[in-house]
């Protein structure tokens, strides 16, 4: 253990470091199909497990419960319910956001899983767990097969 310690803060120096870390994240077989359905058809898909009968959203290649391969795809519609939500008032630096962002986990009836997304066209005072919501998609030509092809979810009529 050090017996001599630095007493003068002006002597405390450091070396600045920077790490380049750029990736591409392959969507994979199920991810490719899931996001193409959103991009081309405005459809949200689930995948059904033959063993346990559960439908997983987003659609994927395997069942996390049975470890079985999922081959049956299901259109689950674009309407769900707010399972939980939060209102973020600060950005990643901890600075106050000009407009708060509402994040929610949306669940779809009869399925397992759901989608984490933003909520829009809703007043903070109207937010509640269980609120019925529907997906608002970007116009088709602007979609690029990713989660932001859905702009947000809004209260369903």
């Amino acid at each position, binding site marked *: 253990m050090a017996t001599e310690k630095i007493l003068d803060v002006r002597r*405390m120096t450091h070396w600045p470091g920077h790490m380049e870390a750029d990736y591409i994240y392959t969507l994979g077989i199920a991810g490719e199909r899931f996001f193409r359905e959103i991009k081309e058809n405005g459809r949200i898909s689930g995948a059904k497990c033959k063993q346990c009968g559960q439908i997983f959203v987003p659609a994927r290649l395997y069942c996390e419960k049975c470890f079985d391969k999922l081959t049956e795809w299901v259109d689950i519609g674009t309407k769900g319910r707010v399972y939980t939500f939060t209102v*973020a008032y600060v950005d990643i630096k901890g600075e106050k956001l000009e407009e708060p962002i509402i994040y929610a986990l949306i669940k779809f009836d009869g399925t397992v899983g759901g989608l984490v997304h*933003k909520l829009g066209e809703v007043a903070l005072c109207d937010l509640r767990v269980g609120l019925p919501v529907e997906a608002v998609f970007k116009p088709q030509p602007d979609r690029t097969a990713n989660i932001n092809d859905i702009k947000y979810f809004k209260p369903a009529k």
Partner: protein
Amino acid sequence: MSDVAIVGVGCTGFKSVTPDVSYKEMMFEAATRAYQDAGNISPRKDIDAFISVAEDYWEGISIFDEFVPDQLGAVMGHLFTICGDSIIGLSTAYMLIKTGYFDVVALESHGKPSDLLTLYDVVSFAMDPVLNRPLGGHPFYVGGMEMNRFLCETGNTKEQCAMVVAKNKGNALPNPYAAYGADIEVEDVLCSNPYFYPLNRLDISQPADGGIVLVLASSEVAHKLNDNPIWVRGVGWICETPSLETRCWSEAIYARMAAQMAYKKAGINTPSREVDFAEVDDMFSYKELQHMEALRLCGKGQAGKLTEEGVTRIDGDLPINPSGGMLGMGWPLEASGMQRLLEVVLQLRGEAGSRQLPDVEVGVAQSWRGVPTTTGAVAVLSNC
């Protein structure tokens, strides 16, 4: 198979910033103290294996484990680096000794988040890159979402969560290792800025720098190294799922199942009666309540009420986080579980100073790996 005891502890203490020492010097300081505490052993002769708990992105070094040996006295030694929380590291040390291959094992963990200029970007990097990360924002919104669902399902309240903050920061005041002790009121928490509704600024633990080393030994040698060994009676750990979409949001299943595993090993059937006190993860205020319920220290929906009644205070019947928890001591990344273990050891030894609990024999330490994980670990320790 031999029993396993903790025979040495060493801690640097926790601070909001530590510009005077490198992470290696921090590890060296904690190790020096722990080896001295364990009967002044030499790591070059007397320690059979070393475990370090660390992750590359927290450290800013690829293959961080290669940078571990020198400052622990572990060069040419048998070294493992565990990626996870430090109570998972403890579980590994426990099993190493149980194999009979090793008698004395050193366990190290530290955090130096003040070196990390983009801490929350690194946390964000742990989110699913395809489904979640493109939404952007501060990753702790996940905590806000979880708190909302937890309060909604259990009936615990935001006010009761604020009581946890006031209690833990108060407990931290007399703890010389704690970075964020404070004498604050419940109102201060409720009036602090909203961050991720229903989480306010003061509901969230702040980062802290510091390191801890523990020395573990088999029962054959434990008494030779320390007159007051603290026995590891059971360990458990569980990984649920990384998926925000399919995980359980209504309770901390990872903590419940990890506790189940540890209690079974320790022969504990009714934790609310058999456990004298607990140190649990309180990264966010509601986490203390959620984890108390998962550890079966009370029934579902009861943790807030017990907090309100003062049962979990340092002078209550079931003290929770007498150290001040992470809200009071700070959040040292993967060393958070080690903070919990350290306090349980000090309390069971009777070395907790002015915050010493009377007549304690069995203590529980529990950790959570933090946003966005559902991984947790539990250790049951006793002094007899």
